[in-house]
């Protein structure tokens, strides 16, 4: 008997999903919730009907100004957000921009966020031990000679540069002396002599500035790791009991190539990088996730639909567009809408040369010329024929 009902329920739910009567999220929830109760067929039908009724009541009405509502819903809590740029995220060692500055960064679609950060998940074999995780961390972290040297200086007498390596740091970063020497050889800027932990770069030149320049170059010489990733922190995530790498700096394209990295779960907060590497849909999801994260961290309750709309608008053309003068607002087809926003005169002059025509479909344009705006109750055009005056007079007198 109960099995029968279960089958019935499954069938009905599938049908509802297929006919798109209810969205998948509700059906999923329903399936889960219903399995906890013992219900009769009649009850089930009543529940379904009630839910469909409630769902239909909750639908948006045509003409609804969803854009304005979304913008206000994100903008209004802005006044309650902190202005503090730096905050400590889950990992105490890493600084992350949060609050209003980060939110502005997201809607501005900045090419380089002020604190790029990655969360790197690892594959099965690496995620369970710290040592294994460190192995990957060492591969990823960008290490310069400076980072493993105790001292780098110019030996003026012998016209050479002297690099004293720190064995402890080397071990920490997983770098061997030979590797450093190898890298220096590739520079082809002089003879390399290795003595224990000291490396000499012989450079037969009289010019001091040249040596100084070389010193600078050697300091910043990258021995290993991925460009842009300046620091890696290893943390154990409590929920899943695995080791995860958090990085300062971001380079998604390179990181996901590293063997052992679970690229399906690896994340970055750099929207443009995601757009380039994984595509526009992924970028949209990053925008949503990042914006939602900022708002949640500040304890602000904003419906995800508002953020989705912003993200969808930003990515609608297939590339990430900024909200503002150089993006969405600057590319509107209406001259008035652009002129009313920013750089008024430039848009008017350009429009006149091009002989542009404003067809007055948007909000700003119609406000400007004093007509009803095409949103909400203004989105319908209803013409009412009233009785002609003559007929009226005729009938009454």
């Amino acid at each position, binding site marked *: 008997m109960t099995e029968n009902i279960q089958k019935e329920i499954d069938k009905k739910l599938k049908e509802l999903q297929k006919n798109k009567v209810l969205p998948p999220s509700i059906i999923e929830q329903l399936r889960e919730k219903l399995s906890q109760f013992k219900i009769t067929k009649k009850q089930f039908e009543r529940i379904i009907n009630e839910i469909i009724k409630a769902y239909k009541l909750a639908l948006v009405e045509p003409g609804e100004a969803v854009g304005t509502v979304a913008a206000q819903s994100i903008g209004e809590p*802005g006044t309650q957000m902190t202005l503090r740029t730096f905050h400590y995220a889950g990992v105490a060692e890493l600084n992350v921009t949060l609050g209003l500055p980060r939110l502005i960064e997201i809607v501005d679609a900045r090419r380089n966020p002020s604190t790029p950060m990655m969360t790197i998940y690892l594959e099965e074999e690496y995620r369970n031990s710290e040592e294994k995780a460190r192995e990957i961390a060492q591969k990823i972290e960008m290490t310069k000679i400076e980072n493993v040297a105790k001292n780098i200086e110019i030996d003026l007498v012998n016209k050479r540069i002297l690099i004293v390596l720190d064995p402890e740091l080397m071990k920490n970063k997983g770098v061997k002396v030979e590797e450093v020497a190898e890298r220096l050889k590739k520079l082809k800027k002089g003879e390399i002599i290795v003595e224990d932990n000291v490396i000499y770069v012989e450079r037969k030149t009289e010019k001091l500035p040249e040596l100084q320049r070389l010193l600078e170059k050697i300091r910043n010489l990258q021995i290993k790791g991925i460009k842009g990733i300046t620091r890696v922190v290893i943390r154990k995530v409590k929920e899943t009991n695995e080791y995860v790498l958090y990085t300062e700096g971001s380079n998604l394209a390179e990181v996901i190539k590293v063997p052992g990295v679970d690229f399906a779960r690896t994340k970055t907060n750099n929207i443009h990088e995601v757009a380039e590497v994984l595509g526009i849909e992924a970028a949209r999801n990053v925008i949503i996730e990042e914006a939602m994260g900022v708002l949640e961290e500040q304890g602000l309750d904003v419906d995800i639909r508002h953020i989705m709309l912003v993200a969808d608008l930003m990515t609608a053309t297939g590339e990430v567009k900024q909200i503002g003068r150089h993006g969405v607002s600057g590319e509107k087809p209406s001259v008035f809408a652009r002129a009313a926003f920013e750089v008024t005169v430039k848009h008017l002059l350009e*429009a006149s040369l091009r002989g542009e025509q404003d067809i007055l479909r948007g909000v700003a344009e119609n406000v400007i010329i004093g007509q009803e705006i095409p949103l909400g*109750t203004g989105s319908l055009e209803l013409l*009412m024929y009233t009785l002609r005056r003559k007929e009226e007079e005729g009938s009454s007198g």
Partner: protein
Amino acid sequence: MSLYRPPKKIGAIRFGLLSPETIRKMSVTRIITPDTYSEDGLPIDSGLMDGRLGTIEPGQRCKTCGNRIGECPGHFGHIELARPVIHVGFAKVIYKILRATCRKCSRILLSDEELEDFKKRMDEYEKKWKGLSEEISDELLKKASRVSKCPHCGESQFKIKFEKPTTYYEETKEGLRRLTPIEIRDRLERITDEDARLLGINPKDARPEWMVLTVLPVPPVTVRPSITLESGVRSEDDLTHKLVDIIRINQRLRENIEAGAPQLIIEDLWELLQYHVITYFDNEVSGVPPARHRSGRALRTLSQRLKGKEGRFRSNLSGKRVDFSARTVISPDPNLSINEVGVPIDIAKILTIPERVTEWNIEELKELVIKGPDQYPGANYIIRLDGRRIDLRYVRDRKTIAESLEPGFIVERHLKDGDIVLFNRQPSLHRMSIMAHEVRVLPYRTFRLHLCVCPPYNADFDGDEMNLHVPQSEEARAEARVLMRVQEQVLSPRYGGPIVGAIQDYISSAFLFTSKNNLLTKEEVCQLLSVADYKGDLPEPAVKEPQPLWTGKQIFSLFLPKGLNISLRASVCRKCPGGCLKEKCPYDAYVAVRDGQLITGVIDERSIGAFQPDSILHRIIKDFGTDAAREFLDKIGKLLIEFISRKGFTMGLDDVEIPKVATIRIQEILKEAEEKVDKLIESYRRGELQRLPGRTLEETLEMQIMKVLAEARDKAGDIASEHLGLENHAVIMAETGARGSILNLAQMAACVGQQSVRGERINRGYRNRTLPHFKVGDLSAKARGFVASNYRTGLDPIEFFFHAMGGREGLVDTAVRTSTSGYMQRRLVNALQDLKVEYDGTVRDASSRIIQIIYGEDGVDPAKSDHGKAVNIDIIIEKVLSESEQT
């Protein structure tokens, strides 16, 4: 009455350049003399104030159209320039075109095949992706500017040099040769229409040569009205000043040319004319000294009039001034409904509503007309069938005029109770910043509003002012009533929960009222219920002997709709570590409502507060509708205010006093902490401190010190709160969420704690020390802004100073934040404002481009959702199951 005509609609507006011919054609007169008025104060013919250019003085009739001020739109004149000048706005475009076209034949410097190719691409783009064609023009301009020999006529090209703002040179072998505007105009004239199109210029609306001006339009006087000061001195508009300059120089230039003056003088004058025309268009061009008024103030010319926040676009076109509005200070009135607004009688007598006379209301309106504009309720104007407007202020015998009223007349009557008006408080950050209220005309001079609508407006009564608007058409009123009324806006679209709700005293009162020890006598119950407008029977008293007593929960339940079921944890919930005991909660923090009866739990912020999703208030709106919610808030509000007024609720110095023993313990804790800090500093000095990964030694020290001090403050606070029980009013407010927090209390009773600037301990001031009272390099708690005193005993001068530093940072922070977040919001709104849901369920922008296939992936309106969820499945299942149980 004229019959209803569908309003004319503007379909589109096209932009273009004015050709010299058009300018002449639309001109009513050529302006020749630079003088404006003759000695006897009359405008001079062919002068800048010529009577044909429009009217600016009341009573004067326009010489062109015969209309009076207000009706006459003004008419253009024109100035014939003696020599052509460049239009600054197009200087850069002209440069680009000169570079890309031949100096001899003016064709684009690309071969016919290349041009054909560009043309094809342009046609295609225009069809498919409008707006992208400009990119093609840019590409073409770039490509053509690199060519050095004309493929059409074989002329070799010179490099063009552009010097801001409007000077062009040709770099010939002999040296730089200046191009005069005449030459430039010649070159531009020779450009074919087809080439112009490829250059990104639509030849129908803008021939390239029109960028070089030969005739200057003179705007009507209505655009540049002169103002007469009290002393009778006339002061001209900035534009008029500039035009006077232009005419003067133009005249001198013409005279000199005609007199055959030396080339040098002519060129100088020409240059001067160019300067004046530049500043006439734009007085902020880089490299050009701005034209100044006699007083030294820079003139506000055409470009400045349009630009920026105070410019025409943002200040007059996107935002307009309105009639039928009022503004005054607001004050609270708990006896109003949340839907109402109290309007001062003086305002009600000025704001009017046009009411059409019908045979059903004629008597009523006659009476209003007789009362006139000074008595309330009365009327201010009558509009007769012929459209004539009668001002009742000047009618001697209003009785006769009232008798003449007939159906079809419109009476503009005073605002009266029940009229719908819009109420607004700036900054209007979300749609709940403008809501519709019903009018309640009240004495005195402030707008009155219900306290529960303070949260959506973010209003308080420390001097806030608000605006009120009276919709004038039946449609507007209907829309306001149906869509904008407060009760329809209780649920915020931001998170799908109530934004209107109880605040402050309402919450304290609700807590006291519904707490277990509140028992009420029959007398008290009756009085409270009568205040709350309760009409119905009293429930059975909870205690019958020796006298009948009712619990607060019983009385509160009278206002809950029958059928309401909800369980939640109140704000006073301690979040017991051993798991919640639910109904058996020792603190009575588990709120359980069954079929409209409050079984257990105290009511506080969580249940009826504003901004509280999934609260009792939220469930009432969702399950019983907005009317029920309005009624609930109105009635319970009055009851709670009455209750707390009778009981009395205050807070004073005594409320934050703690026993001596506690003070001593707190001091011990603080002393310990300070010693700990000293030890940390000591170990840092000795170099024994362990560096945290990724931090410098100093940072590590700071972090640890801050941690120690924060812990000490918390401990001190904990001790204080041990001695402050729930009988303490300040604690009630903090615990129930009415106002303040335990932290605030701890600061008052125990210890204020660390002051910070930029998230760090205070470290600014003198070199390596904050104040001269300390030794250089002193890192101790006290020297870096730790305030060990509390607000009750007071701060010592040093602490006070640090506290002021922290406080100032807070103020600066808020000031900066409002401006940055305001700009972000403006950008967001501007980018998103055109998006709307279409009838097919898609979200599209103004050009019908699809942004989302289904809004929010499920088509659910957040405002109608249940805290973001499309459907509250739990409640539906519960409802169905319990229903079938009953049957």
